């Protein structure tokens, strides 16, 4: 993390970082740093790294929880259209609601945007859940195909709405569709923090119930779990987490698929450990990916969505091959 804060177009050493942070806290260490370094660290670097940590953790934990909820390992917020629906809602909000909120660079503006992505994500979550269930089981094939449809519909709506947008709106719309942490500010961080925190703290509390859910819905009920309440809460929390991260960073694909899988291979599918570990691992991974996106070709930044899809796409194909061998798909 220190490395991530320090590396970039302008490099700052760990000692200097320490010194700057202490300076901010009103305590001088005597290690020299320039004012430029201080500004870059405080205004650009630090919020961005915290944002990467938050979003990486949130997306991963939501992915892991959704895989438990849908009872199959292929569920991923971006793959089944949940992120896209959230983004569409955000775009509609920016273009149609922009006048109401005179820009979204304020905490209340950020909240309203969060609310829009949350609504979009929730709608998609419920829709996919309803569509892909056959006799109490989620059908992986239908779930993925419904995701394709949802992605297409969201894309079309987004495309349509962009025609109604003016120049400035268009710029912020494209930014959302690319998936980037480039716009991170303290305002953004403050805007998503409560939602991410809810997902990251709330979902592990449901670990036992999610474990039981993997036996089957009726069996979880036989074990004394209130399944309806579990489903509602889990969907709300996931939609909230995914919605929040889409609201500030756009669609960052595959994080929720890849991270829980790697973690599951390492420590098994038991959700109490899996959820927490996924959050930590996802936070680290996204910070690393963001670091790559900043440092591969400085000063140009490669949107992080491109990097995550570049790594995640092949991984998804590999998972499909594995599922094909088990012959359990469709």
């Amino acid at each position, binding site marked *: 993390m220190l490395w991530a804060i320090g590396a970039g177009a302008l490099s700052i050493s760990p000692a200097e970082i320490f010194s700057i942070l202490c300076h901010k806290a009103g305590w001088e260490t005597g290690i020299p740093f320039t004012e430029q370094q201080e500004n870059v660290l405080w205004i650009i670097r630090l919020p961005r790294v915290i944002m990467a940590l938050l979003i990486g953790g949130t997306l991963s934990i939501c992915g892991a929880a959704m*895989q*438990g909820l849908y*009872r*199959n*390992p292929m569920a991923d917020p971006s793959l089944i259209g949940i992120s896209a629906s959230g983004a569409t809602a955000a775009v509609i909000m920016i273009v149609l609601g922009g006048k109401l909120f005179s820009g979204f660079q304020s905490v209340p503006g950020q909240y309203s945007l969060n609310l829009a992505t949350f609504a979009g994500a929730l709608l998609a979550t419920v829709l996919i859940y309803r569509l892909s269930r056959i006799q109490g*089981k989620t059908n992986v094939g239908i779930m993925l195909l419904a995701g394709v449809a949802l992605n297409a519909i969201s894309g079309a709506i987004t495309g349509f709405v962009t025609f109604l947008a003016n120049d400035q709106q268009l710029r912020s719309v494209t930014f959302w569709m690319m998936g980037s942490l480039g716009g991170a500010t303290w305002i953004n961080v403050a805007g998503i923090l409560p939602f991410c925190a809810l997902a990251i703290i709330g979902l592990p509390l449901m670990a*036992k119930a999610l*474990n*039981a859910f*993997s*036996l*089957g819905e*009726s*069996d979880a*009920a*036989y*074990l*004394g*779990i*209130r399944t309806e309440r579990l489903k509602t809460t889990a969907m709300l929390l996931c939609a909230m987490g995914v919605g929040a991260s889409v609201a500030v960073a756009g669609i960052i694909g595959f994080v929720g698929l890849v991270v829980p899988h790697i973690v*599951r291979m390492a420590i*098994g*599918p*038991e959700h*109490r450990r899996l959820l927490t570990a996924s959050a930590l691992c996802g936070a680290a991974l996204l910070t690393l990916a963001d670091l790559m996106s900043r440092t591969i070709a400085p000063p140009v930044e490669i949107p992080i969505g491109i990097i995550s899809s570049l790594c995640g796409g092949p991984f998804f194909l590999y998972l499909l091959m594995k599922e094909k061998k088990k012959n*359990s798909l469709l």
Partner: protein
Amino acid sequence: MLQVNHISYQVQGRPLLTEVSAAIRPGALTALMGSNGAGKSTLLKLISGALQPSAGHITWQGKAMKDWDQRALARTRAVLRQQYSVQLPFSVFDIIAMGRYPHFRSKLTEQCRNVIAKVAAYTGTEQLLNRNYLTLSGGEQQRVQLARVLAQVWDTPSDQKLVLLDEPVSALDIQYQHQLLALVKGLTQAQFTVIAVLHDLNLAMQYADDVLLLKAGRTVRFAAKEEALDAPHIYETFGVKAALHQAEDYPHPFITVCPVHQQYQQW
């Protein structure tokens, strides 16, 4: 003591069960039998509390099923189904530990670990505890599920344990069928109340104590197995002719079903 009092159950006006009554004995294995669609699984779901009857009521330990708190009920009643489709690679220990979920909040207690060790020993799954559940054979998986179900009620006071089995052996080969039913039968000695939906007349004759015969949602007969499973009742329930053979020194008769002849017609 489990009391089923005049229950009826309808779905969209179509009656699935009509006026079914039974006083299920504790410490006995009661078999629910009947042809497909007779309402066996529905009755089992009503008894489990997953469904509520349209009329009549079911009481368990003197308390109506619908008044039970879901979590409290989970500590005294467990259900085993025919087949499970687990997708995630849980270890056998994790699966059995799920049976203890109604008993602890966030961490397995010492008591829970004891129970898990005991049910694993009883079901012969100790060697499997660290295995990946998905790599087990069908018979092993069902035994692990039985262990999970038993873990749920193992340390409940002796006459307050209710185990419901919905076609527990239908997907198993002959050896596992007998193994599993023998395990279930053994429970009745510890005063478990066991109710199982069974299809095989002879398995019921060999392992059950009481038999409840259902036809089109109505009780044909509810009695001790020798009394319920005689040729007239079998004919009434299943529409097949059966013959009972009593071998010398064998505890109960053996049931054979006369072949049904169907003439092939040339159109």
